[in-house]
C-alpha cells in the first residue's frame, strides 16, 4: 500500500512536471541555410527567458515545411516558398500555414580562392551544371577540371537553383551532391576545381565569391533584387501559432533579432514587405 502511494505521487509529480514544461518548449526544424540564424537567436532568447527551451534542427527546407504541415514542430524554416506539391498537401489536410520572412539571402556562387575566374553568366552556370562545360579553360581560367557541387533534393537551395539556373534541366550525373551548406563550403575551400552554391552567410573567407551576370551579391543588390539569385528566408507557422512561437518570431523580427541576422552573415529584412501568403 505504501509503495502504491509513493508510486502514484511520483507519477503525479512527473505528470505535472511534463505539463509545465510543454508550454515553454519550442521545436524548430528545416533549412540548413536558416539554421545558424535560428540557432543563434534561440540561444539569445533562451538566455533572456530561462524558463523557455528551444530545440533547433536542420534537415532541409522540405523537411521544415513537411514537419510544420504534419505539426511535428512548432516552427518550420525554409529557404524558399511553398511549392505546388506542398500546397496540394496542405489543401488535402485542410491546414493553413503562415509565412514570415525573417532575413534576406542570396544563393552565392563560390569557387576555390586560387581560381582566377571572377564572373560567370547564368547561362555559363547552367552549362557547368548540366555537364557541357568541363574545364575552367573554357571560361578563361586554368587548365583544371570543373567539379560542380550540387545539393540533395530536400534542399531549398537546390530548388531555388534548379528553378532559376537550371530551368529544370537535369544536373549532370557527374556532379557531386552534398547534404548541407557547410559541406559544400568546406569541400569548395580545399578542392581547386570546385564550384558550389551556398547561402550568403556560408560564403566565408576560405572560398571566393564570384559575380553572376556581373553583379556581386551584397546588401544593396540583394535587397533590390538585382542579384539574380536573391531570395528571402522564411519561418512557417500554423495559421494560429502558439503564444511562444509568435513571441519568438517577434524577437527574430525585432532590432535585436535582425542584428543576429547580420552577425550570421545574412542580410537584414528591413521589414518593408508584408508577409507572403
Amino acid at each position, binding site marked *: 500500500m505504501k509503495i502504491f502511494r509513493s508510486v502514484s505521487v511520483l507519477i503525479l509529480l512527473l505528470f505535472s512536471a511534463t505539463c509545465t514544461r510543454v508550454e515553454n518548449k519550442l521545436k524548430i526544424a528545416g533549412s540548413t541555410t536558416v539554421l545558424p540564424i535560428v540557432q543563434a537567436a534561440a540561444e539569445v532568447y533562451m538566455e533572456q527567458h530561462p524558463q523557455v527551451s528551444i530545440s533547433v534542427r536542420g534537415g532541409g527546407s522540405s523537411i521544415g515545411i513537411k514537419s510544420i504541415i504534419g505539426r511535428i514542430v512548432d516552427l518550420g524554416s525554409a529557404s524558399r516558398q511553398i511549392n505546388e506539391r506542398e500546397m496540394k498537401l496542405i489543401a488535402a489536410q485542410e491546414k493553413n500555414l503562415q509565412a514570415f520572412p525573417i532575413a534576406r539571402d542570396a544563393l552565392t556562387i563560390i569557387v576555390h580562392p586560387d581560381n582566377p575566374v571572377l564572373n560567370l553568366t547564368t547561362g555559363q552556370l547552367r552549362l557547368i551544371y548540366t555537364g557541357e562545360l568541363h574545364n575552367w579553360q573554357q571560361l578563361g581560367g586554368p587548365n583544371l577540371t570543373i567539379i560542380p557541387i550540387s545539393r540533395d533534393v530536400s534542399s531549398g537551395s537546390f530548388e531555388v537553383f534548379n528553378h532559376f539556373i537550371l530551368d529544370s534541366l537535369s544536373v549532370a*550525373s557527374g556532379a557531386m551532391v552534398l547534404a548541407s551548406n557547410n559541406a559544400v563550403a568546406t569541400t569548395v575551400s580545399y578542392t581547386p576545381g570546385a564550384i558550389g552554391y551556398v547561402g550568403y552567410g556560408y560564403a566565408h573567407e576560405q572560398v571566393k565569391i564570384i559575380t553572376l551576370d556581373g553583379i556581386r551579391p551584397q546588401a544593396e543588390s540583394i535587397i533590390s533584387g538585382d542579384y539574380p539569385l536573391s531570395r528571402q528566408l522564411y519561418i512557417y507557422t500554423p495559421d494560429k501559432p502558439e503564444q511562444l512561437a509568435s513571441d519568438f518570431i517577434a524577437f527574430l523580427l525585432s532590432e535585436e533579432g535582425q542584428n543576429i541576422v547580420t552577425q550570421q552573415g545574412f542580410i537584414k529584412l528591413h521589414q518593408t514587405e508584408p508577409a507572403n501568403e
Partner: protein
Amino acid sequence: MNKFKETSFKSVTYLASLFTIVFLFAIILSIFYEGIPIFKHVSLIKFLTSPSWHPTHFPPDFGILSLIAGSFLVTLGALIISIPLGLGSAIYISELAGPTSKEILKPVIELLASIPSVVYGLFGMAFLSPLLIKIFHVPTGLNIFSASIILGIMVVPIISSMSEDALSTVPKSLREASLALGANKWETIIRVVVPAAKSGIFSSIILGFGRAIGETMVVLMVAGGAAQIPKGLFQPVRPMPAAIAAEMGETVIGSPHFHALYGISIILFTVTFISILITEFIVHRRKK
C-alpha cells in the same frame, strides 16, 4: 515459489526474443509493401539495369544501376583494404604476439569498432579528402577511393576479431604436428593454421562485406554523391544507402520516388540477407 520464478523468467526471456522476431518481420513486410509498387512505374529489369537516376524530374527516371555500381565498388575497395589488414592483425595476435602486445592490440583494434560512423565520415571529409587532393592532385577528394579507405578501416575490427577467434580455435595439436614434421612457424601458419580456420575467416569477410555495403553515414559524407557509373577510382559515386538517406526527406509519401527508395532498400536488404545466409551456412557446415 521457485517454480513460479523459473516459469516467469522463462516467459520474460521468451517474450523478449519474440519481440525481435516481430520487429524483424514488421520491417521486412513494410519495405516490401512500400517498395513493390515502384514496379508499376518501371519494370524490375529497367530498375536494375538503367544507369539514369533522375527521380525528381519530369518524367522521372528510376534506374539504380549507377547506385548499385557505387555500392559495390566502394565495398570492394573497402574489402581490398580491410582483408589484408584484418587478417594480418588476426594472424599476428593469434599466432605471433607475446601476451603483452596481445593484451594491448586486441582491445585497441576492437576500439575501432566503437567509433561512431559519423566521426569516421567527418574524418574522411575534413582530413583524408584534402590530403588526397594534395598528394594525388585529383580533381576531388570525395570519391570511391576515399570512401573505400574509410569503410575499409571500419571493417578491419570485424574481420580481425572474428578471424582471430577462428584461428585460436584451431587445435594446438595441429600446430605441434606441423612443427614436428619440420615446418617452420611461417609454413605452419600459412599451410596449416589458416587453412584449418578458413571457414571462420571467410565468414568474417562476408560479415565485413555486409557491414560495408549497408553503411550509410560514411558514404553519404565521403563518397561525393554523384549518381553516375564511375570511369575511374577518383570519381564520386552515390551508393544505395546514401541515396536513401539524402532523398527520403523530400519524397511525398506514396509517390513513385518514395516507392523507388523503398525499392532500393529491397535490393540492399536482399544483398545483406544473402550475405548473412552464406555465413550461417558456412558456420553451420563447420559445426557438423
